[in-house]
């Protein structure tokens, strides 16, 4: 079983490496949006560090949504998605490994670059650590929830807008607790509760989203 999933992961990562532009889009978007804020809001460190957690989290959320509609669309267009549905592995596992590949390509780079951008907005050391931790817990949730939406809007014209409308409401709790955790750390209140809740979101999404995504794909390909 692991063999099949390893092949699937290899496939998606190889494809991403051969289409670098797509990988870099999300990352550049994240960097540019966050860098625009000091230019727009002004260079006062106090203001910047106050809005910093929210700005970083909103930008990360939008950046990870940017590539979401590509999650299954390419495979759908060239017929390989049908082959994946006919593979000898349970479909939820296939969905999970595709989500993992998507996160490694479009979510994980955001986590890696976030401390640099956090410094740019004047966040202190402790906030930066919490920022990385919350993004590490939160961005996989975004990819997992997004997979259900991407599966449902597959093959729909104008699916991109519909996808945003579907998943954004579900992203809100992640955004609130993610940004809230960094804000709490910044003001010295301690972010434990927020981080625990994000962890709970991740566990819940890991349990439910692969099955939801699999059901969505079956409906879309019927």
């Amino acid at each position, binding site marked *: 079983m692991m063999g099949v999933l390893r092949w699937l992961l290899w496939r998606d990562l*190889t494809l991403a490496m*051969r289409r670098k532009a797509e990988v870099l889009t999300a990352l550049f978007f994240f960097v540019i949006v966050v860098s625009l804020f000091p230019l727009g809001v002004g260079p006062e460190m106090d203001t910047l560090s106050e809005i910093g957690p929210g700005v970083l989290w909103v930008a990360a959320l939008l950046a990870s949504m940017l590539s979401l509609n590509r999650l299954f669309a390419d495979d759908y267009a060239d017929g390989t998605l*049908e082959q994946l549905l006919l593979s*000898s592995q349970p479909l939820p596992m296939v969905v999970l490994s595709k989500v993992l590949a998507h996160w490694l390509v479009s979510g994980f780079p955001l986590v890696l670059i976030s401390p640099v951008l956090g410094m740019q907005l004047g966040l202190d050391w402790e906030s930066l650590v919490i920022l990385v931790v919350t993004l590490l817990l939160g961005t996989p949730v975004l990819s997992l929830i997004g997979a259900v939406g991407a599966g449902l809007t597959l093959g729909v014209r104008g699916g991109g807008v519909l996808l945003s409308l579907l998943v954004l409401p579900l992203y809100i709790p992640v955004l609130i607790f993610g940004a809230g955790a960094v804000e709490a750390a910044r003001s010295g209140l301690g972010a434990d509760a927020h981080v625990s809740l994000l962890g709970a979101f991740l566990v819940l999404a890991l349990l439910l989203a692969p099955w939801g995504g699999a059901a969505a794909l079956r409906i879309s390909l*019927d």
Partner: protein
Amino acid sequence: MLEAEGLVCERGDRILFANVGFRLNAGELLHVKGVNGSGKTSLLRMLCGLVAPAAGEIRWRGENIRKQKEEYNRELLYIGHQAGIKAELTALENLKLSCALNDAGIDDDQAWRALGDIGLGGREELPSKVLSQGQQRRVALARMLVSRAPLWILDEPFTALDVKAVAQLEQVLGAHLQQGGYIVLTTHQNFTLSQGRLRMLHLGPSPESGP
């Protein structure tokens, strides 16, 4: 044995076909015929389990295919009318990948030999996007040379192939039937079978959808 009974296919509020049934034994090929839009592809996708029939049942070895999803998939080779290969991957990678996804991994030697046999010698390591339509088709069909699945479901396998490749494909189909395989295919082209038994299934417009 592959059996279908009373299959009904609905698309929107139209009934594409109704009450379709057949029984396919080892060593037999079912040729599904019908005009464009008569539901041939829908029937094949139904037989794969991709489309749920509105009514009726499909049984593989006596059991409904919806109850044996992964086990059924392992015994099934489906080549749709899209080639189902990735443009960025090489022919070799595509072939190895599609075999591995069905738990029937092959080593490099087998993959090289299959691609050579199907007439892609020298192009094994080119990205599939630079291959012609017919060559891309051959990459997909190369799976048939290495497949261990007993049931083959092929949607228009002869499309975009040249005369020589069609003859080769006929041979491969014959050999599979001789080994006790099952084949369901659609095609508008004429083909000859050297071995195995040929059966026909004609999908006509259903009475309800007449003008």
